[in-house]
């Protein structure tokens, strides 16, 4: 009896493992093909069925990408844009989220509703008016101009607000007030340390939001050296041809930083999302 049920559960686990493995392979396949393509000759890329391991691996594509395009410059642009946007969003979200969670006045509730309302308006709707403002400010082709659309994230404010409500009891703040702490001191020394998880999660979200954004940079950036990676990569696709080998090599090269960041922050990311409301 036990033996058979043991065998059955083992068989079930094996089936599950196989299924997960297949899904994993399907998810990874485009990525693997992309990386492989980067090492292929232009002829091999067009071979059908596609090869997973290049027959005649070459570094030529990478060499051309780095010599013909300012790829490092683009990576630097993207990185600074994503990092600055992340820092701005973390600061605005924690401050605003804390205030809307703990300072209950009707005016603040109205403001919070307005914050949330901005989430239902697609960015593309106000992208063009925003472009004219950036242009008027003379901030086209600059990180500053890029950042204007990415300083505040309504979801971030919401995320922090929920976590403050769940993880920071009123008594903690009141105890600190009686103990002699000022409001900003309380925010910095009591509230922020208790929000480490959600802040890490928000950082990852904000970073990738800026890192992967395309529409706004392509509107604001026209000079080649000011491009972010997304815009730069799109540039490989000219009106007449697509240089697949070059595009693959460039894509594979720029994937490295994002994969690294995610691997490094993965734990806090998952914890931050999962932690909301589950504190002791």
């Amino acid at each position: 009896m036990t033996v058979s049920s043991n065998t059955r559960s083992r068989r079930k686990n094996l089936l599950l493992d196989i299924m997960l493995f297949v899904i994993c392979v399907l998810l990874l396949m485009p990525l693997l093909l992309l990386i492989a393509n980067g090492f292929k000759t232009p002829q091999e890329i067009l071979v059908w069925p596609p090869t997973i391991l290049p027959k005649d691996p070459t570094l030529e594509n990478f060499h051309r990408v780095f010599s013909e395009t300012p790829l490092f410059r683009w990576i630097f642009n993207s990185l600074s844009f994503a990092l600055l946007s992340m820092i701005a969003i973390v600061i605005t979200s924690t401050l605003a989220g804390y205030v809307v969670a703990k300072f209950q006045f009707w005016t603040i509730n109205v403001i919070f509703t307005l914050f949330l309302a901005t989430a239902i308006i697609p960015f593309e709707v106000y992208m063009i008016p925003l472009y004219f403002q950036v242009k008027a400010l003379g901030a086209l082709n600059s990180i500053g101009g890029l950042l204007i659309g990415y300083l505040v994230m309504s979801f971030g404010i919401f995320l922090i607000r929920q976590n403050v409500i769940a993880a920071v009891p009123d008594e903690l703040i009141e105890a600190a007030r009686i103990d002699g702490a000022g409001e900003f001191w309380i925010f910095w020394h009591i509230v922020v340390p208790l929000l480490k998880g959600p802040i890490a999660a928000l950082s990852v979200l904000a970073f990738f939001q800026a890192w992967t954004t395309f529409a706004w940079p392509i509107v604001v950036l026209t000079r080649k050296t000011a491009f972010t990676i997304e815009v730069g990569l799109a540039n490989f696709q000219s009106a007449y041809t697509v240089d697949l080998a070059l595009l693959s090599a460039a894509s594979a090269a720029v994937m490295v930083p994002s994969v690294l960041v995610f691997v490094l922050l993965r734990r806090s990311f998952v914890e931050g999302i999962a932690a909301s409301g589950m504190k002791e």
Partner: protein
Amino acid sequence: MSSVEIRNLRKSFGPTEVLHGVSFTIPDGAFVALVGPSGCGKSTILRLLAGLEEVSDGELLIDDRVINDVEAKNRDIAMVFQNYALYPHMTVAENMGFSLRLMKRSKADITAAVKNVAEVLGIGELLDRLPKQLSGGQRQRVAMGRAIVRQPKVFLFDEPLSNLDAKLRVQMRAELKALHSRLQTTTIYVTHDQIEAMTMADIVVVMRDGFIEQIGRPLDLYDNPKNSFVAGFIGSPAMNFLPVTTEAGSATFSFGDGQSLSLAKFKHLQGEFLIGIRPEHFQQQKTRNGLSVTIESIEQTGAETLLQCQSGDQKVVIVLHDRFAASPGEEYRFGFDLADLHLFEAESGKAISS
């Protein structure tokens, strides 16, 4: 050490007034318990004193200085919260030294003060732990330590023992009382548990619905309650109230079920009244006065016997300090001393003294 005075204190939340002009004075070094059912306004008084809420009207004074508009951090008050409010990311030592750090005291000073208080409270070996690594009782001690270390003028306790189990609560009660007699700091203690109030406080303030019902020493409240609310609230199990009627000059007070009682000193009264008698004032011995009841259930705890009885359509609870052999359904007559009886006006609940 400081005296605290509350003058005609009012507090409204929106259109709802929750404190309707409360006044009392707490002498220097006294231990005062504010007690009453939930929603009576006792915690509000504490929060007003702490500076966590704004006073709607009236005055709060510490050492004869009005503190209505003084910020919480400048009132020199320490408060212990019901859920302890320990900073979860700080160690016990950091929690306890928090206020001293804000006062910009030197590190050596803080360490010495924290260590000293930790020794007094018996938590010396826990200083490096985080709050989540402590038991409920230990957290309670840390919360008290955090308050004591500042040497404030006034301690405020907001139901500090209600999250502890029954055994620990009794132990902490004794420790708190010992601590107070040692430090002699003016203490205001909010609780809904009248036993805590009775056992620890020098003065008990009984509140209901934003009014003070009675202020007095614990045994004064027990012996001479001003009204049926205080009489019912102080003492456990609660006092029995039996409706009676009497005619002027007759001195005979009749219960609903045909029984009656002769109270010569109240013969001038007429109308409907409540007779109050505490469960522990009934006796097994036959006395001249008594009450016949039908026993419904018997709970033996060893030290005492608790009887749930019925007299007419009234429930009567009786506590005997001896063993008692009877079975449910039996009728029995219990005696009492007239001196232990309380008489209240039926409508207003006001106590009637002879």
